[in-house]
C-alpha cells in the first residue's frame, strides 16, 4: 500500500504539498505516483524565479516507460528546485516525500491551500 503522510496536503494530480511556513511550500509527487511510473530516469524542473498559476504545468517526471506532467498545486513564485534530481532522478522513487522533493514555491495566496486534499481525501482518491 502507498504511503500517504498525514501532515501533508495533496492534489488530485498526485502532487504533495508541505507548508514550511507562510512563505515556503515544498512540492513533490506522491509515493502512489512514483509507484505507478516505475523507475524514474529524468526530471525536468521549472526555473527559479518563474511565476506559476495554480494548475500550471511546472515540470515533467519521466520513467523508462512514460512521461508525466507535474502541475503546480498553488500560484506563486518558484524559489528553489531540487538540483540533485538532475543526476539522481531515482531519489523520487526511493524517498518521494523527502530527498525526492521537486521544487519550492513562495505562495501568492494561502487560501488556495484550502482547495487541496487532506491525506484522508487523497487516500480515498487513489483507492
Amino acid at each position, binding site marked *: 500500500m502507498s504511503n500517504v503522510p498525514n501532515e501533508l496536503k495533496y492534489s488530485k494530480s498526485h502532487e504533495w504539498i508541505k507548508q514550511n511556513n507562510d512563505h515556503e511550500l515544498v512540492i513533490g509527487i506522491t509515493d502512489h505516483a512514483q509507484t505507478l511510473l*516505475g523507475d524514474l530516469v*529524468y526530471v525536468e524542473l521549472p526555473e527559479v524565479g518563474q511565476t506559476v498559476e495554480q494548475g500550471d504545468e511546472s515540470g515533467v517526471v*519521466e520513467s*523508462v*516507460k512514460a512521461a508525466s506532467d507535474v502541475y503546480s498545486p498553488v500560484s506563486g513564485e518558484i524559489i528553489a528546485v531540487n538540483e540533485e534530481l538532475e543526476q539522481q532522478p531515482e531519489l523520487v522513487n526511493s524517498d518521494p516525500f523527502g530527498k525526492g522533493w521537486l521544487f519550492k514555491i513562495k505562495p501568492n495566496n494561502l487560501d488556495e491551500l484550502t482547495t487541496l486534499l487532506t491525506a484522508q481525501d487523497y487516500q480515498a482518491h487513489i483507492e
Partner: protein
Amino acid sequence: MAEKTALYQQHLQANAKMVDFGGWEMPLHYGSQLDEHHQVRQDAGMFDVSHMTIIDVSGAQSQDFLRYLLANNVDRLAVDGKALYSCMLNEAGNVIDDLIVYKQAEQRYRVVVNAATRVKDLAWINQQAEQFNVTINERSDLAMLAIQGPNARSKVKQALDAEFIAIIDELKPFYSKEIADWMIAHTGYTGEDGLEIMLPNTQAETLWHKFINAGIKPCGLGARDTLRLEAGMNLYGTDMDETTSPLTSGLGWTIAWEPTDRDFIGRKALQAQRQQGVTHKFVGLILDGKGVLRNHQKVILANGEEGEITSGSYSPTLSKAIGLARVPKTIGAHCEVMIRNKAVPASVVKVPFVRHGKPVYKLIAEGVSS
C-alpha cells in the same frame, strides 16, 4: 478476459506488476525494470515469453510453403536445428509480422511469431497453406522461457541434467535442438548470450523454480523492451507494421533476393520499391540534449525534412536516451528531435547501441549519407 501463461501464479508470487500485453496478462517488472535490465546485461535473467505464438509446420511441401510465405529463404536452413529470422510480408511488400523459423528436421519446421499478431498471423498462414500439402499446428500446449545474460548458459546448466548440459555445450548461436518434448534454442532478443526453451506447460513451473534456485532472476517485459532497443532489434507494431516496408525498417538484410526465381509473397512489390528508390531509411539516435526519446516524436533534419521516432526510451546501459527512427535518406550526422515543443539535438548512429554488455554504436561520419 486476458489470457494467462502457465507461469501466471509464479509471477504473482514474485510480486510482479502485471499488465495487459496483446491480450495476455504479463509481468511488466518485479519491482525495478532498471535492476532487471542490468541483471541481464551483467549476469542472468529469465523472461516468461509463453505468450508468443508457436506454430509447427510439417508435411511434404513444408519447405516449399515457407519459401513462398517468408521474405527470407528457408533454403538457408541446411542443417537440422538451424534458425532464421524473417519477415512475413503481404502482397504490398509490407510487414505482417517478424518471426523466427527453426528447422527441426526434414519436412518439419517451427515458427515463432508475436503474441499480439496471433489471430491475423494464423489466418494468413492457414490461408496461404491451402495451396500446399502442409499441416499447420499451433502449439498452445507449450510454454517458452528466455534465459539471457553472460551467465545465462552456465546457470541453466547448473539447473539441468547431464543430457541437457551436453546439448547446451554443443549448441552454436542460432541453432536449436529437440530433446523429448522440449526444444532448446541458442537465440534471444536482448543482445546478450542466452537460450530460449520451449517445453510443455505442465513442466514450466518446475523449471522456473529450478532456474530461480540457480540464481536466474525473473525479468519483465519492461526490461525486455529496453534490452532489445539497446540491441538495435525491431519491435513489431512499433518499428514496422502492415503500412511499412522492410526496406525502410532496417530489415533489408532479411530479404533473400537470390535466387531470383524464388517467388515469395511481397517480392514483386519490394522489387518495384527498390527500382523506384526508397526515400527513407532506419537509423539509431542518441539524444545529446536533455530528456527522453519516445515513440512518435518528430525528427527534424538539418535540411528541414522530417522523420519519426518509432521506438524511443532510456538506455540503462548508456545512461542516455536512445531511439530507432524512420527518417529521410538525406539525414546527416546530426538532427533534432521535438520533445514537448522544444528541438533537442541528437546524433545519428549505426545500431546496435549495446552488445554483450558494452556500448558498440558507431556515430555516422559528418557529410556522409548512405
